[in-house]
């Protein structure tokens, strides 16, 4: 049976294959001109996507490789379809995709994740209103006072760490005018942000984080990357 399905990892400005690269299901990764753009893809007879860690890591590796061979616009995980359908969809979006390629050319994404340094911060131990670990169970009769005290402590702690998180982001944003910010993106995280920078600026951002870590003691910082520019493509408001 013919390999009728294609999985598309990224749109790239590399007009040639990406070396001996293997993608999902260990299939060779090819670069093909489809719908007016170059697409990094692999062909499959049968492929079931399950977002396994292996699949996610392979997709990331292909996108990284595409970025190293030139500019790359990552596609959302799960872009698996018939080749004709892919060509039609790429053609519909070709102008936007070429604009994205131009916008991110020569730049990489660096991620910031800020969590509270306090183990009592509700962002760290659970959702607001939940009992922090280790607290004694309230006794009959003192429930309201206990809850008031707990809520006050949470508010104070949260407010200080959220302000610190914002300060950290603002410092990094001074070095990276193109950025995106998510406050409280999920339980346990105060803030995540993505910065689109020249490769040569990566060390600069790392140095800023080093300095911030010395002064901002209420938060923990994690800088990740360099990533392909996942957060800066797809018609986002720039």
């Amino acid at each position, binding site marked *: 049976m013919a390999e009728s399905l294609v999985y598309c990892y990224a749109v790239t400005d590399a007009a040639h294959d990406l070396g001996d690269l293997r993608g999902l299901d260990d299939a060779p990764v090819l670069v093909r001109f489809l719908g007016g753009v170059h697409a990094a893809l692999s062909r499959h007879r049968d492929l079931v996507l399950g977002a396994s860690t292996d699949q996610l890591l392979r997709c990331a*590796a292909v996108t990284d490789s595409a970025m190293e061979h030139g500019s790359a616009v990552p596609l959302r995980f799960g872009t698996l379809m018939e080749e004709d359908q892919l060509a039609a969809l790429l053609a519909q979006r070709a102008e936007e995709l070429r604009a994205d390629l131009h916008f991110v050319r020569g730049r990489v994404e660096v991620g910031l*994740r800020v969590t509270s340094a306090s183990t009592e911060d509700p962002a760290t131990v659970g959702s607001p209103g939940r009992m922090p670990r280790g607290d004694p169970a309230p006794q009959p009769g003192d429930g309201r006072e206990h809850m008031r005290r707990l809520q006050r402590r949470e508010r104070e702690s949260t407010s200080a760490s959220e302000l610190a998180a914002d300060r950290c982001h603002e410092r990094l944003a001074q070095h990276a005018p193109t950025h995106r910010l998510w406050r409280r993106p999920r*339980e346990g995280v105060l803030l995540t942000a993505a910065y689109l920078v020249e490769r040569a600026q990566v060390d600069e951002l790392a140095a800023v984080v080093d300095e911030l870590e010395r002064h901002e003691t209420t938060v923990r910082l994690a800088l990740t990357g360099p990533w392909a520019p996942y957060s800066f493509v797809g018609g986002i408001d720039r």
Partner: protein
Amino acid sequence: MSMRDGFNEESVLDLAGDATVVDLVDRLLDRGVVLAAEITLAVADVDLVHVSLRALLGTSDRALRMSADPSRDREPATLTTEGLTGSRAPLPRHG
């Protein structure tokens, strides 16, 4: 051959110890260009993996530091069950 058997909750949990994987999942599943929403939304297990990793993030004390060594940027990411190495090799955070 089906890739569904590639989904292995245990390996997801192991990887979640490396919080950078959560950032990877965010990017692959929430960002990037959506060519056809009805296709990407139909991917099985995505929500399950996403929720599992997010729930675990708060339990991970292992903060990460991006590798700032430019020479590593050109190394392709290596696929291992321990997490990403290569271009995004995280270094233990000081302090």
